[in-house]
Structures are given as structure tokens and as C-alpha cells.
């Protein structure tokens, strides 16, 4: 019999030494034939009743020994045993084995019972891959019936206490028989040391000593869950059944049966069935349904449940409409910037556009000689907006007028978004270099050659400039341009690194499909998380969680310390847009053309809006507006507060 519970510190355990040998005649009546099973506390023998001389009457004899060395304690245990044996002997139910006799001998107690020819459910599970759901349903009904019988005993209900697969026999007729009553429990005490392996099927309140008939309902639920999913609860964290939904492991399990099992497994006693009779009734309704009818599970999800500033809008999904839109002459791939009362956005039509935040009316435009993929960045001190163009040039314009302040030429297209920090501009170019320029006049400070196009946006801390390149390399440079450390991912890095300044961890995605967490001090890799597609979207950290999109179509939320997934939100197409967080919501665009608003805690959709093209850029928040641009040439301004 499989046994997962290991008791430790039981050096005095000598059960095996004193097991009764075959052919030994016990109590002048029972000839031992062999051992049927044994656990920590005793042995079950098969024996022949010699009182029946003409027929071969087989019985099962359960032997229990106490490990108590104290004579008085031992005596009291035997007394309890006798009392419980008396109760069992009066029971009369087809699923309960008959008790023929009980006695004690040499400080051991013996219970003589009906021998059941069959195998228990645990053994049955080990021999099969799956059992028919109809069979499981039938057994469940019979188990409810026998438990209900026990629970209705007078004067006190009998609680079985130990419902689990190994205590349910399926006899030669295919009927369930309950074996191993809680009687043995009397003898299991005094074990104080650390044990490995939980009982797995017991109800939470049982650990506080509150045992009621509804504890049996929980354990029956746990047994059925194990039968249906084939996931052994003794190998899982206690009370974690809800983390293993039955349909994930048994797609054919009927919805109604699942609902019954889930209710039986309710953590709070009050949420379970009140009686086994009630549970049985629910199961029987399932049995009498005609075959071939498909029942959809009850729809309980509600969009109106939570509170939030989008409440009114969310009640009617799809009603969030842009306050204004602004159409450029080509695709917009960059993230808009805002300064004072203006929004700035570059377009593949070669122009940098400045429009009024209030109305979307044009303020000025500036034409470069190539498309603009780099996002504009604003510096209030120098009154500049800085961005790159496909014409190889980095531009710095006075954001008030759109006039050129200075320009800087590289040897290839500038697609990376610049970073302004420490009164300098840091940016990458397709010519393979990372540049540092003075912000006031564009004076060249240094460059670092990464030998591959640099399209990710540098992150600058008090000490380091961290940036990735098409070669897959992530590099950390000192503010003077000297290399501090590097980390190589397997494919190009387009995603911009994000540094959690408090924890000192760099998060960066790679087109090799992994999100990496690196120590900002030395580039050591704490963890990496695999997605099913390249990661182009840049991550953000918020209250201990990392959020980012992947080309596999999911937006991920991971625990930053453990890298475990908290939730993911699936869209139809790759996500390359970088998400942005406002209060309790996360916003991002999809290449499926939708602009999404997702609840930060649950990962559930609040609302979405369909634009006319793929969204590849990140949204921007300005006052009570959220701006996002799409490949449909349009800049959208949505109201942020409903």
C-alpha cells in the first residue's frame, strides 16, 4: 500500500518484528493467511475463521498496537477502542463491512471484519490512467449515502474523519465499501516531531479539532477531486484544490459534477453542502440527465463588481470615445510626448507635429528628411524637444516654436528614443553607437561602439547608462562612457531596459523571448522568464510586479522577486507596445489594433477601443488625457477620468 507519510523519531517502532506469521492461530479461532496491508499503526491480516469447518470463510483482522509506554494511557486507549468497536458492530449498511468480533490480547487490539475482495481506489488509480466519469459519479452517490447513514446515527452522529481513496474499496461487484474507520485514530497520538507529507484530504477545520459531518463532505470532495484530476493532494500544498481546476486535467468531466465537487471543497464550512443527503441529491440530478445534453457552466462573472474611476464607462464597454484625434500623413510608430499645453508626435510622414492638448489643433510642425520612429523627449530646462529621424540626424527643437536649436549627425538612421539625464542626451543609432551629447548645444561628449544597431532607449541612473543592441548585448557604461559590464541575450534587444532604482535591478526583454532581471551593479542575472515570442515591449515595474507585452500576444504580470506569473492577458496578435500604469489600471496597445485598459490586480479587461491600425507605441498620460498613436496615421486622446 503506498504510504507517503513518514513518521520520524519513532525508533521504538517494531511492528514488523512482531507481525503474526502465516498459519498462526489467533484467539483459538482465526488462522492467519497473510498480510493484506499495513500502515504506521498496525497491520491488517487475512485470516480464516476456523469456527466454520466446512466452508472457507475469510475475514479481515485489523491489529492495532499502541506506542504508549504508560500503562494507564494504554489501558484508556484500549477502553476507547472497545467502546468504538461496539458502536461499529451495530451499524448496518451495505457499504460498511460487517464487524464480527473484537478482542484485545497482549496490549494489542483486534477487530475481526468482513473480508472484502476487491481493491481500494488508490490502488485502482495506480493501475489505470483514468476512470470513467460516470463510474466516479456513481461511487460519489454511494459514498454520500453511506456517509449520510453514519451522520444520522443516534444519539451522536458518527464522523468518518478519514475519507480518502485508500479507505474506499471497490468490491468484486463494483460497489463501494468504506474501510478503516476513524477508530485507529485513537492510537495515533504523541507523535511530536516534524513529519513530511500532509494527509491531503482533511478539511481545514479538522486541524483545529473541529470535526463535524461537513468535514467528511470536504474529504469526499477531495477524494473525488483526486479521482477526477489524478492530482494527488498529498503532493500539493494543503487546501489548494481550487488552484487545480478539474477541467484543466479532465476536460470531459461534466460541469455539474465539477460544481458539486467544488462546493464540497469550500474552505468555509458554511459554504459546503449542509448534509451528505443534499450533496447526494445534487449528484443524482446529474445522473438522471439524458446523455448528449451539454450544460454550460453558470456564468457568474460580472463586469460591474469592482470600483474604479472607469466605473461608468466600464458598465457599457466600448463607450469610451476619444476626446479628439489628430491625423498625420503616414503611420505613427512613436510614443507621443507632452509639454505644457501641447502634445508632440513624430510620424513616418517625416514631420514632428505639435498639437494643442485641449483640442488637438495644430500648433506647429517641423519636417525632417526621413520618417520619424524615435519618440520625442522634452526637456523643460532647455525648452527643447529631442528626437531622431531616418535621415541619420538627432534633432533638438525649441518646443515653443518648432525651430531648430541644434542637430547631430550619425552615420545611420536614428530610431532609438533619446534619454535626457544629468544635462546630457543619451541615444543610440543604427550606426551601432551609443552617443552622449551636451543638451544645451549638442556638444559631442563620447560614443560607445556596440557594433550593432542600437534602437532601445538608454536608461540612465546616477552612475550608469544601460542600453541594449541588435546583437543581443546589454551594456552598462559609466557616465564617462567606460564599459562596466555587459550581458548577452541570444537575439536582438529592442526593448528598453527599465531599472528599479530601489531594488537595483535592471529588467529588459529580448527578441529571444525572455524577460531578464539583472543586478545593476554587475549584470548578474537573477532570473529570466520565457514567453512564446520575441519581447519588443519595454517592461515597467510597479509595487513589486513587472508588466510587459510579448509577441506571443500576452501582456504579462510577474512577481519581481520570484519571477512567478501573477496573471497574463491574452490578445489576438503580438504586443510590442510598452504598457503604462495609472492608478489601478494598465494601458497598452495591440497590433490587433485595439487600445486596452486592464485592471492591474486581476488582469481583467476594463475597456478597449479599436483604432484603424496596429498600435506599436506606448501611451502617454497628460493631465486628464491619455494619448496613443496608431499605424492608422492618427493620434488619439482619450479622457482619463470618466
Amino acid at each position, binding site marked *: 500500500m503506498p504510504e*507517503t507519510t*513518514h513518521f*520520524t*523519531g*519513532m525508533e521504538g*517502532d517494531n511492528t514488523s518484528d512482531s507481525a503474526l506469521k502465516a498459519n498462526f492461530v489467533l484467539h483459538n479461532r482465526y488462522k492467519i493467511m497473510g498480510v493484506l496491508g499495513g500502515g504506521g499503526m498496525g497491520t491488517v491480516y487475512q485470516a480464516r475463521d476456523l469456527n466454520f469447518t466446512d466452508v472457507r470463510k475469510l475475514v479481515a483482522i485489523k491489529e492495532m498496537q499502541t506506542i504508549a509506554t504508560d500503562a494507564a494511557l494504554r489501558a484508556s486507549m484500549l477502553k476507547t477502542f472497545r467502546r468504538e468497536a461496539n458502536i461499529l458492530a451495530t451499524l448496518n449498511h451495505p457499504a460498511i463491512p460487517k464487524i464480527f468480533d473484537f478482542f484485545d490480547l497482549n496490549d494489542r487490539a483486534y477487530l475481526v471484519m468482513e473480508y472484502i475482495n476487491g481493491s481500494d481506489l488508490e490502488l485502482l488509480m495506480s493501475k489505470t490512467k483514468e476512470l470513467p466519469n460516470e463510474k466516479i459519479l456513481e461511487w460519489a452517490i454511494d459514498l454520500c449515502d453511506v456517509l449520510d447513514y453514519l451522520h444520522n446515527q443516534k444519539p451522536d452522529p458518527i464522523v468518518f474523519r478519514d475519507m480518502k481513496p485508500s479507505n474506499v474499496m471497490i468490491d468484486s461487484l463494483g460497489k463501494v465499501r468504506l474501510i478503516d474507520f476513524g477508530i485507529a485514530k485513537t492510537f495515533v497520538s504523541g*507523535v*511530536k*516531531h*516534524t*513529519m*513530511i*507529507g*500532509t494527509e491531503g484530504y482533511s478539511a*481545514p*477545520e479538522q*486541524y*483545529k*479539532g473541529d470535526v463535524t459531518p461537513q468535514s467528511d463532505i470536504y474529504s469526499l470532495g477531495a477524494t473525488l477531486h483526486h479521482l477526477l484530476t489524478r492530482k494527488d493532494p498529498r*503532493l*500539493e*500544498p*494543503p*487546501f489548494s484544490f481550487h488552484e487545480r481546476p478539474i477541467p484543466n486535467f479532465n476536460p470531459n468531466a461534466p460541469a455539474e459534477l465539477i460544481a458539486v465537487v467544488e462546493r464540497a471543497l469550500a*474552505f468555509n464550512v458554511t459554504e459546503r453542502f449542509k448534509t451528505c443527503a443534499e450533496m447526494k441529491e445534487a449528484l443524482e440530478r446529474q445522473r438522471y440527465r439524458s446523455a448528449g445534453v451539454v450544460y454550460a457552466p453558470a456564468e457568474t462573472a460580472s463586469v460591474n463588481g469592482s470600483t474604479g474611476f472607469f466605473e461608468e464607462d466600464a458598465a457599457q464597454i466600448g463607450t469610451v470615445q476619444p476626446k479628439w484625434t489628430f491625423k498625420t500623413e503616414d503611420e505613427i510608430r512613436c510614443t507621443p510626448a507632452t509639454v505644457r499645453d501641447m502634445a508632440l508626435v513624430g510620424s513616418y510622414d517625416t514631420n514632428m507635429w505639435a498639437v494643442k492638448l485641449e483640442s488637438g489643433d495644430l500648433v506647429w510642425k517641423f519636417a525632417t528628411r526621413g520618417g520619424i520612429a524615435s519618440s520625442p523627449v522634452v526637456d523643460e530646462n532647455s525648452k527643447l524637444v529631442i528626437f531622431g529621424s531616418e535621415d541619420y540626424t538627432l534633432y533638438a527643437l525649441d518646443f515653443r516654436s518648432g525651430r531648430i536649436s541644434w542637430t547631430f549627425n550619425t552615420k545611420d538612421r536614428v530610431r532609438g528614443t533619446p534619454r*535626457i*539625464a*544629468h*544635462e546630457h542626451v543619451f541615444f543610440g543609432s543604427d550606426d551601432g553607437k551609443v552617443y552622449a551629447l551636451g543638451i544645451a548645444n549638442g556638444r559631442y561628449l563620447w560614443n560607445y561602439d556596440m557594433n550593432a544597431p542600437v534602437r532601445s532607449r538608454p*536608461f540612465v*541612473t*546616477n*552612475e550608469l547608462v544601460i542600453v541594449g543592441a541588435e546583437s543581443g548585448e546589454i551594456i552598462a557604461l559609466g*557616465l564617462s562612457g567606460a564599459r562596466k559590464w555587459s*550581458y*548577452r541575450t541570444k537575439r536582438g534587444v529592442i526593448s*528598453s531596459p*527599465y531599472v528599479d*532604482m530601489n*531594488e*537595483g*535591478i535592471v529588467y529588459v526583454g529580448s527578441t529571444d523571448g525572455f524577460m*531578464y532581471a*539583472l*543586478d545593476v*551593479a*554587475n*549584470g*548578474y*542575472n*537573477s*532570473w*529570466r522568464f520565457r514567453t512564446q515570442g520575441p519581447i519588443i515591449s*519595454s517592461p*515597467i515595474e*510597479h509595487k513589486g510586479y513587472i508588466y510587459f507585452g510579448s509577441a506571443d500576444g500576452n501582456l504579462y504580470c510577474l512577481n519581481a*522577486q*520570484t*519571477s512567478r506569473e501573477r496573471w497574463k492577458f491574452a490578445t489576438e496578435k503580438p504586443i510590442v507596445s510598452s504598457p503604462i*500604469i495609472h492608478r489601478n489600471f494598465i494601458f497598452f496597445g495591440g497590433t490587433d489594433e485595439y487600445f486596452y485598459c486592464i485592471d492591474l490586480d486581476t488582469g481583467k479587461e476594463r475597456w478597449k477601443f479599436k483604432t484603424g491600425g496596429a498600435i506599436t507605441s506606448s501611451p502617454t498620460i497628460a493631465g486628464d488625457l491619455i494619448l496613443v498613436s496608431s499605424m492608422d496615421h492618427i493620434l488619439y486622446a482619450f479622457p482619463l477620468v470618466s
Partner: protein
Amino acid sequence: MITPPPANSHSDAETEKLTKPLDEAAVAAAAEPAIDTVADGVTRPLPQDTFIPVAGNEHAVFGQLTDVGKVRTNNQDAAFSFLATTRSADEWPDFGLFVVADGMGGHQDGEKASAITTRSLASHILGTLYVPMVRGDEDANQIPVNEVLETAVQKANSDVVANVPEGGTTVTAAVVIGDLAYIAHVGDSRIYLISKGAIEQVTRDHSLVQRLIELGQLTPEEATDHKQPNVLYRALGQNDTVDVDTLTRRLPPHARLLLCSDGLWNQVADSEILDIVTKHPIPQEACNKLIALANMRGGIDNVTAILLKLPG
């Protein structure tokens, strides 16, 4: 949200640039007499004025102690500490590996299981992470540390299953590179982070009692005098694979990291641990006091403590 560094960041950087050379000058001045001594081969008494009181530790330091307790006849706990601190132009960060394993099982199975586990972890982790670092490999930082820890624990698990089929063990391990701690654990041996006058339990016990607390069925107070034996739902040596919790924590300056078996935390309250660790700046002394207190309370279990103190 991508936020620019705070406006004063530039001045912070400058302040640091200003202070650094001063420190270096002070250190150089302190070293000078020693160089003289070597140069002319004559031993002279150190001039009084070059004595600089040591305010803190420039590198991490640790203490470790394990004890059988007052009741058990054998110690099934195992402890492993490794700390390399370097000063050279290589600028290697401090590297530490600390492991506590609490074995379970009769007939010496427990102590065998915990011993195999520390051995297995140490050889895998030092071989995969530390050796490439001291070899100066360019890509020493490439391999994800949490995966190294996970693999090491899985290997240890296989080793226990293969060699001590009746034994089991907890394991709690911390790799410290610089001031970043990479943690892996299974079971109920714990890691505490003690910093700025507060103590925080960093690991979450894989025990039935902890699970009942998390689900609101037990209060932490009820748990301390809980009648149930201590039941773990995860341990090494039970199955072909084991579910390992890994996490990363930045350690603040002066922070202490305490690894301990349940023999300590069952007997000594968190507040007392905080008190002792704070009062004894030398980690070994703090370990000695912690274990003495556990034994004073009855010493019913093996007890182990490893205390790492970060520089600052």
C-alpha cells in the same frame, strides 16, 4: 512608468565623485608605514597617529553555529557557509553561499539527507557560479542565478532520493553576490532579513500550520502552541522532483541575513532574534547567543544559525 531620475541626481553623483578621492587618500596614508617596513627590512613600531578606528566592515562577515540541543542524540541539521571577499583591480563583488538543511528520518537517515544536500548544493553552485568568476570568465554573469539554485536543489533532491530513500530534509540556501541575495528554499528552515531595527521573514514555510495561518484558520498566536505535529508539505527526498521557491532580495547596507532551522525559530521569538542580533555586532557572537537561548528554552530540537552581516 518610466520616470526620469530625480532632479537632484546630478548633484548626488558629483558629491560622490568629490568624496571618493578623499577616502582613497586616507587609505593610502594608512598603508604607507607598512610599505616602508618592507622596503628597508627593519621592523619598526607603528606610529600612534596612523591608527584608524574601524567603523564598520568593508566586506561581508558571517558567523555559524549548530548544536544538537538538549534532548536529541544526534544532530540532523547541516550548515554550510562560504564567503569570498576580494580586493583587487578585478573588482569582484563579495561572493557568499550559505545553506541550512534540517534532515528528517530515523536510523541516521536525517543527518545523511541533510549532509548530502549541503554537499550537492555547494559543489553545484560554487562550480557553476563561483569558479567562472574567479577564473575571470567574461560570461560569468550570464547564467540565471535562480536557475542555478533551482537546478542545485533538484540535484540534491535526486541525490537524497537515490541515497537515503527513507530520509528527507528541508533546504534553505542563499547566494550573495555583492549586496544581492538569491534565495532558494523548500520546507521550514527560514531566512530572516534584519535591517534598520526591523526583522522580516523572507521565506515562507511549506508547512501545514503556515498554510492554515495564510488561510485564516489559525492565528500566528494559536500556531505557536499548536497541538498538531509540525507537518511539511514540501521537502527534499519525497519525490522525483520538488517544487522550489526562489526569490531575489537587495540587502541594504549593514543588513543581516539569518538562516536558521526550526530549532531556533520554534524556541526564540522574532523580536528576541532582532534584539540579540542588534546587540551583538559580531555575527559569531550573535549566533552563539541565539543558540544558547534556544537550548535554555529546553533545546528540544537541533538548532542551527548562520548570520551574514553586510558591509556599510
